[in-house]
């Protein structure tokens, strides 16, 4: 299977704008999981795609006040039908722009999606204050998905590092549904930052857990586990990490035939390098600051191998690793 063919199976759907109700929103103050009723996005979405989310009701004329705080809530049009002197739609100021978050779980059947995110700045902090029952504003699904798992050959290896883990839940589910043999390496600094690992495991795929400090799973880096799996997958190798792939069968099934990775860019660069050496097709999901998320601003570019730029939001976020120059973010 050539990379080019795999590339052609990456899904890019027509995106929509959807106001989505918060179903659950749980967190420990830093890492949050948000479940949304978003049937239109859920119906169209594929693993690897993302949404642009805004915690305030932006750009919708005549919407009630700025804060999604439940009661008491202000209204531009009063209960008696009179109009307040206040502007009918206060523009969102803080945050001003939407924030990109990867789809962690996609449940078209229930019309639901889930997102897992870390509070790092103003946008994610404002998002973290939105209570269940409130509405958030989405554009999605955006970007190109991972390639169709049914199109590739051999065992699919999913590698998630830190907040790169959540999208691997959707990826794992897609692969499982497509009948592709799959294994996941999920790594983080400490056990605390393995958010999304539970969602990946829930799909039934075998998971190798790695942390920098050994507070969960093996101590080390995802690349240590990757080296082992690549080594292991070569017929000649004797050093097999049995626990890692309990359901692996014999023969080519066992060989790592494709890698999908999401995480910090230095990790992606390391994964890319190893895959290139081993001749394994590798897809990486990259991140950039985004203004629009749908291709209009040219703000999210990643350097293209051979010169020029690609748009992360439209040509990616999932790229064949050899197509992009990593390390710039």
């Amino acid at each position, binding site marked *: 299977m050539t990379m080019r063919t795999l590339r052609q199976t990456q899904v890019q759907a027509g995106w929509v704008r959807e106001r989505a109700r918060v179903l659950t929103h749980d967190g420990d103050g830093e890492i949050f999981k948000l479940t949304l009723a978003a049937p239109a996005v859920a119906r169209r979405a594929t693993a690897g795609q993302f949404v642009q989310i805004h915690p305030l009701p932006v*750009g919708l004329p005549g919407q009630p006040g700025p804060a999604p705080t439940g009661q008491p809530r202000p209204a531009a049009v009063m209960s008696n039908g009179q109009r307040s*002197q206040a502007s009918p*739609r206060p*523009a969102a100021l803080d*945050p*001003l722009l*939407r924030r990109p978050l990867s789809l962690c779980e996609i449940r078209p059947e229930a019309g639901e999606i889930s997102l897992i995110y870390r509070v790092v700045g103003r946008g994610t902090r404002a998002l973290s204050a939105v209570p269940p029952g409130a509405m958030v504003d989405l554009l999605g699904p955006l970007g190109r998905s991972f390639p169709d798992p049914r199109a590739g050959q051999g065992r699919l290896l999913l590698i998630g590092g830190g907040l790169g883990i959540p999208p691997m839940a959707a990826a794992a589910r897609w692969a499982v549904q497509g009948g592709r043999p799959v294994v996941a390496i999920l790594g983080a600094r400490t056990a605390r930052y393995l958010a999304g690992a539970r969602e990946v495991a829930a799909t039934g795929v075998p998971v190798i857990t790695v942390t920098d400090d050994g507070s969960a799973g093996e101590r080390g880096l995802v690349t240590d586990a990757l080296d082992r799996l690549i080594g292991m997958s070569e017929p000649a190798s004797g050093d097999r990490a049995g626990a890692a792939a309990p359901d692996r069968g014999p023969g080519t099934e066992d060989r790592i035939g494709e890698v999908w990775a999401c995480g910090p860019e230095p990790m992606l660069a390391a994964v890319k390098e190893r895959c290139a050496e081993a001749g394994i097709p590798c897809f990486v999901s990259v991140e950039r600051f985004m203004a629009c998320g749908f291709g209009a*601003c*040219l*703000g999210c570019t990643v350097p293209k191998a051979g010169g020029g730029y690609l748009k992360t939001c439209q040509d990616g976020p999932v790229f064949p690793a050899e197509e992009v120059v990593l390390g710039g973010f």
Partner: protein
Amino acid sequence: MGSESVRPAGGSGGSAPDLSVRLFGRTFKTPVWPASGCFGYGREFAGVMDLSQIGAICVKGTAIEPWDGNPGIRVVETPGGMLNAIGLQNPGVDHFLTVDWPWLQERGATVIVNIVGRTVDEYAAVARRLEGTGVAGLELNISCPNVKEGGMAFGTTPRSAAEVTAAVRRATTLPLIVKLSPNVTDIVEIARAVESAGADGLSVINTLMGMSIDIRRRRPHLGNVFGGLSGPAIKPIALRMVWQVAGAVKVPVIGIGGIMTGEDAVEFLMAGASAVQVGTACFVDPRAPLTIAEELAQFMAEHGYRRVGDLVGAARLRGAL
């Protein structure tokens, strides 16, 4: 308390307000246009709106050849605004004419082409390529670094601004709008110079030069160090410049800078703008040019303004200056 509405003499007629504006000898359906660089060539927006309903689409700054743009991080949010250092990445005017323009025409879009260049000749060359194509006008982006003057933007001195305006004026019969840079001591002086050099209209303003620092990584956020500040944060500065320029020139002024709502658009019209452009707002709400036009119509209906022209300069009639 005590903030009663002042209604214009016209009174509130029963019929819906007329949003159309006549400028440069042509009628535009609405006075709320997407700003250059914030709407691509329209393609990304076609899925969520009818492009023919937009007054005019100001497409991305377009050069005679494709430009790559800047390396590194290109956008970052700031308080109430954003910085961009795209570096005018664009596919070049030939790509526009062969790929985008036919596509836009099929959709019935009215298009103003924002043109960029590194020399006066490059600007003029783009203008010549667009002659007779049916685009509604040219918008000259004079914030590009003037190669001959060592990188200072064309728009920062009256002389260089007038020079490039005059050259493009000679190269085109299309309506010529010059988009002014706000990074100047005296914008009125520049406005007068380009008006004298043949501009049919002025777009006020482009972005303000700014920067921000990633204090954890101890380096500027943007790969280019500096970037252009846009969004609500700059609205007061943009509005002041529109007020100043509209009071100093005879040609129509198009107000730009931080417009997010219909009421923001009203502010610019009342300051003297004949139309407005919305940039950053399109990233948050892709339908912003239509949403804002609807809100403008609603404001007009509620306050008894029948035509957009009734709003233009309305805040100048009383008050000082």
